């Protein structure tokens, strides 16, 4: 189609400015809803991903080969030997920013006459502080500082259950890998506010040395938590690390954070389904509104279409003219929608609207809508294609009009 036909299509759209504006507004609303939802979902995924990775101590975990396919509780007793050397080896991989040995253990922690079950982590304080959620989660007290000290950090829910505060003494008890009972006394140096409620009621951190003493696992680790450098491809890095371990004959496996986060995968699927459903509803509304507008336009211009057919216009040309009108409305609506979306996003982010804590979480956060260029592109294509689809039937109807009947249309 040449420029003159596009010009005619544009002028036809402006015949009924109010109607075109209303239909265009629906396109704009659809576009804004799609891009804003994408931005919000992306922020939610981003936050959840960050919490999940940092909650696990890093992007990758090197665990005992026997731990593959087992739960964390089942795998707690499957330890990696010579953890120090293995950590040093992993840390020299080109994609790795940091590697740290961790011990995982479970048991009871007691204060006075109260005892509560816990999920414990024995860690290297300086490394833990730089790579995981724990440092940001300190609500009272100070983060573990001495790798040798008998100090402990407790989740807020766990501390409340025990009735202990910073400075109090607790006894951490567990079963060692050989089946014996062991305990250490430790001073509470920090109470954490862990973002996930269920973990906040259970989480406990000890420095590596007392944890190893508790488990009688000096020099060993349940896992090596690996933080990758910014921008590193997860699967590629995991593959490289697996190959490295295989070459050195180390009986260990590498698990990515996604493999250890079924919750994240399930939430992502749920959001994707909600997003798809919302998109379908939006697209349906836009299709119906635009199809109604185009059908009215065809009805009102029936005699004109008859004239065009009479003077020799091909049916295909008539069809293309109406499709061009739909396409232009889609393009114009998308451009206006993109501008509106940027403005609304800026306003929403500037307003710093506090969200309530999601189910299972201990704190909410400010509503922040991310700018997702892909969503803008997809929205553009989606709205334009939607308008083309909406115009198809009216355009087909216009093209199939009988010129004699159309010319006598009143």
């Amino acid at each position: 189609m040449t420029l003159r036909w596009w010009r005619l299509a544009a002028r036809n759209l402006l015949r009924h400015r109010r109607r075109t504006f209303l239909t265009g507004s629906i396109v704009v609303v659809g576009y804004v809803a799609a891009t804003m939802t994408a931005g919000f979902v992306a922020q939610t995924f981003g936050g959840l991903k960050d919490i999940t990775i940092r909650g696990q101590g890093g992007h990758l975990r090197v665990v005992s080969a026997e731990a593959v396919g087992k739960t964390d509780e089942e795998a707690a007793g499957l330890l990696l030997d010579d953890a120090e050397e293995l950590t040093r080896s992993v840390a020299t991989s080109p994609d790795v920013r940091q590697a740290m040995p961790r011990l995982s253990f479970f048991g009871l922690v007691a204060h006075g006459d109260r005892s509560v079950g816990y999920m414990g982590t024995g860690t290297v304080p300086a490394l833990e502080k730089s790579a995981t959620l724990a440092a940001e989660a300190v609500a009272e007290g100070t983060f573990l500082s001495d790798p040798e000290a008998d100090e402990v950090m407790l989740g807020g829910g766990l501390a409340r259950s025990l009735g202990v505060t910073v400075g109090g003494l607790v006894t951490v008890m567990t079963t060692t890998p050989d089946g014996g009972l062991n305990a250490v006394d430790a001073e509470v140096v920090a109470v954490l506010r862990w973002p996930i409620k269920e973990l906040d009621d259970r989480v406990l951190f000890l420095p590596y040395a007392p944890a190893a003493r508790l488990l009688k696992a000096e020099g060993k680790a349940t896992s090596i938590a690996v933080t990758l450098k910014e921008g590193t491809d997860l699967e590629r890095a995991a593959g490289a690390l697996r190959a490295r371990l295989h070459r050195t004959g180390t009986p260990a496996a590498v698990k990515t954070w996604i493999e250890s986060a079924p919750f994240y995968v399930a939430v992502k699927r749920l959001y994707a389904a909600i997003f798809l459903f919302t998109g379908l509803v939006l697209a349906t509304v836009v299709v119906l509104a635009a199809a109604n507008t185009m059908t009215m336009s065809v009805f009102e211009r029936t005699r004109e279409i008859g004239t065009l057919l009479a003077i020799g216009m091909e049916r295909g040309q008539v069809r293309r003219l109406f499709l061009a009108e739909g396409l232009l409305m889609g393009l114009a609506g998308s451009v206006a929608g993109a501008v509106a979306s940027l403005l609304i996003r800026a306003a929403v982010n500037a307003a710093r609207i506090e969200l309530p804590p999601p189910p299972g979480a201990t704190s909410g956060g400010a509503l922040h809508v991310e700018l997702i260029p892909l969503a803008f592109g997809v929205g553009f294509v989606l709205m334009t294609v939607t308008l083309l689809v909406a115009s198809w039937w009216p355009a087909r109807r216009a093209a199939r009009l009988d010129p004699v009947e159309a010319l006598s249309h009143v």
Partner: protein
Amino acid sequence: MTAPLLSATALTRTYAVGEERVVGVRDAALSLERGELAVLAGPSGSGKTTLLNLLGLLDRPDSGRLELLGEDVSTLDDRGRARLRREKLGFVFQSHQLVPVLSAEENVALALWIRGLPEAECRVRARAALAAVGLAGMEGRRPDAMSGGQRQRVAVARAIVGEPALVLADEPTASLDSETAARLLDLFDALHAEKGIAFLFSSHDPRIVERVPRRVRLVDGRIASDERTGGGAT
């Protein structure tokens, strides 16, 4: 010997009205020479517009044969008929039927746009056609800024801009006052004389019927008479 401009043989067109079939045109036979000026006359419902639509390739007959410039058009598909309409025929309707969002010049050029001609050529020829119908200087006006007579002249310019062999005009003066109608008829005469375009009108307006040298009268869908001024009736 050149073929006549238009030759119709035994054209019949019926319509379904409820369960009955109503005859629009029955056994119409008509031949039109190049450059001829003729009118299909008759009272309302006599079949003038139906026959004009058949001859203008806007409608298909139930039976009969139609040739345009020697080409049998009875069997042409939609595209073939559309091609002949835009290349060989021009149309003027009772109401001007202009596109309201286009200027006078663009409305005239529209008949050339659909042929795919270059924009510059379309504009030059549209301006010339508007000048030929006495509308030079009004190229930029939209239909809603023109009088009824001016709009009908734009419609005539659109009909002739493609240099058709035949212009079919259905009741072209029906919506015009006497003075405007007279000027429009003068214009048809002038275009016929200057450009040699054949015109076939459908009208019961005596101002047209009396001025046109050939009058084909229809009664109840049949051609009742075919008279030529200065010649015998057929």
